[in-house]
């Protein structure tokens, strides 16, 4: 059975016409697979490579460069929460917020809660320094957040 969903295959095929090289579809392909399955499995890497006429090593080379993508040994929880720790957020309590969430949830940045609901990540500048400390849930920014806000939003 195919590891890539019909939707993922369609997204990849739709992107092929946008670039003069098939390799350029690597990031869009990795994004759609991770969005659907919470990771990019070895089988998915092989199938993406086949669609883009590349070797799996080339896909893995790109995948492993960006800390963003997860392998099947280390999949994401249902929600992915990024807490910013760069200077503007650090000056307004970003580091303390991250430490507080680690303590409350009993995990370190990069890990997922035991119930599989939340993966906590540390982020470098999220581009919302006017609302420090800020966080990103999946790909939506929230400004001026407290640990209670985060709990409410992601574990409700």
């Amino acid at each position, binding site marked *: 059975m195919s590891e890539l969903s019909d939707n993922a295959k369609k997204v990849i095929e739709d992107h092929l016409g946008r670039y003069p090289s098939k390799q350029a579809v690597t990031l869009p392909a990795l994004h759609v697979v991770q969005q659907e399955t919470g990771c990019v499995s070895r089988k998915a890497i092989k199938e993406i490579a086949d669609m883009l006429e590349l070797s799996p090593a080339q896909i893995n080379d*790109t995948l492993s460069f960006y800390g963003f993508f997860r392998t099947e040994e280390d999949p994401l929880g249902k929600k992915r929460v990024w807490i910013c720790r760069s200077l503007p957020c650090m000056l307004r309590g970003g580091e303390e917020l991250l430490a507080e969430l680690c303590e409350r949830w009993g995990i370190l940045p990069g890990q997922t809660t035991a119930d599989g609901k939340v993966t906590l990540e540390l982020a470098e500048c999220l581009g919302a320094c006017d609302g420090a400390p800020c966080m990103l849930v999946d790909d939506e920014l929230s400004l001026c957040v407290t640990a209670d806000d985060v709990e409410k939003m992601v574990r409700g």
Partner: protein
Amino acid sequence: MSNEDFKPVLLSRQGKPNSHKLASYKADGGYQALAKALSMKNTEVIDVVKASGLRGRGGAGFPTGLKWTFLPKDVTGPIYLCINGDESEPGTFNNRVLIEQDPHQVLEGIVISSFATRTTTAYFYLRYEYGRCYRVLKDAIDEMYDNHLLGKNILGSGYDLDIHLHRGACAYICGEETGLIESLEGKRAWPRIKPPFPAIEGAFRRPTVVNNVETMACIPHIINKGAEWFMTMGVPKDPNNPRDAGSYGPKLYCISGHVNKPGLVELPMGITARELIDKHAGGVWKGRKAKAVVPGGISMGFMSEKELDTPLDFAGPGRVGCLGLGTAAVIVIDDHTSMVDVLYNACRFFAHESCGQCTPCREGTAWSTKILERIRQGHGKLSDIDVLLEISSSIGTIPGTTICGLADGAAWPMKTAINKFRAEFEEYIKSGRKSESKTLAGAH
């Protein structure tokens, strides 16, 4: 033009209902500049942009019109325009606000710039974290296709253009123009050795221009109102310095850190940091004083309190030992904050974001972070200070040891923090105290 008479240009439509919709943009005169540009020759458009003195807003401040003229004249086959929306420099958020609130202003600039550079395919590289921007842009681009503003025969002119959105994957280095190109091509974002410059051999080995989002937002206004109008704002060229290209036009200043009102302010180039903080950001918070201020994203280094009357134009920050204006992202640090903690934070950022390609950068950023961590644990040695200074003068494109400028960005916070606050570092090390700031040293 004085700052008091100034009316926002790029932010003029902020806060209007449906400011992100095509109908609202058109009601305010949107896409008239495009119609005007399409009635001109592409070289005439370049000449207007060149004459305006517009310099790139992404950090390096390279003259935009001049960059366009570097494309080979007699080229056959595609030319690409890449829009750098990978805004990741700590303190910087103007692209986010511009895109979320007024995407068509940016997109109109892209179509005009594509026409000027004879591009028929433009790639908008957007950092992944800007999910809302992505959705806003996607809708705006759909509206454009439905209204003959993109696709074949734009506004009946015979000119064709497609814009494709391309999402990044959370890597700062993709903001470096050749790192962006490598990432767009589906590879690790390792910056390329230049030459060849992108204008000769860029994306997909074709002639390519990479421009910043705020730069694009300036273009429709320059076409509408002319180069002379643009030059009424900002700081003119220094007649005694033939290499100074001036600092013309409006600029978006991002203010963050220890101020009462962090936010985005648009002003003519050249306002001082002090005026920006006191008049436009409600002053330093909690009645405190500023100890240090970052003039344009942490890569630029620090200004001391005494240097706050420096004008924030392209030339100003350099006169007080900073790297430049950068992204004009002003980060204010109050006098209760330890510069050791601040510098540690900056060094850790660059260690995390170094792509690892050049040894001086990979090792220099990692070891400087480790040394500062040791100082923060109370185990620093006075000789560490000079080791940090030595690292800072050995990494980067200025000493000539790296391919791209990331390491220069790592070096300048070190140089300026230590040169301007050396006594504080010495006192901290001699006291043997530990940092009170919470950080998760073990993470990543």
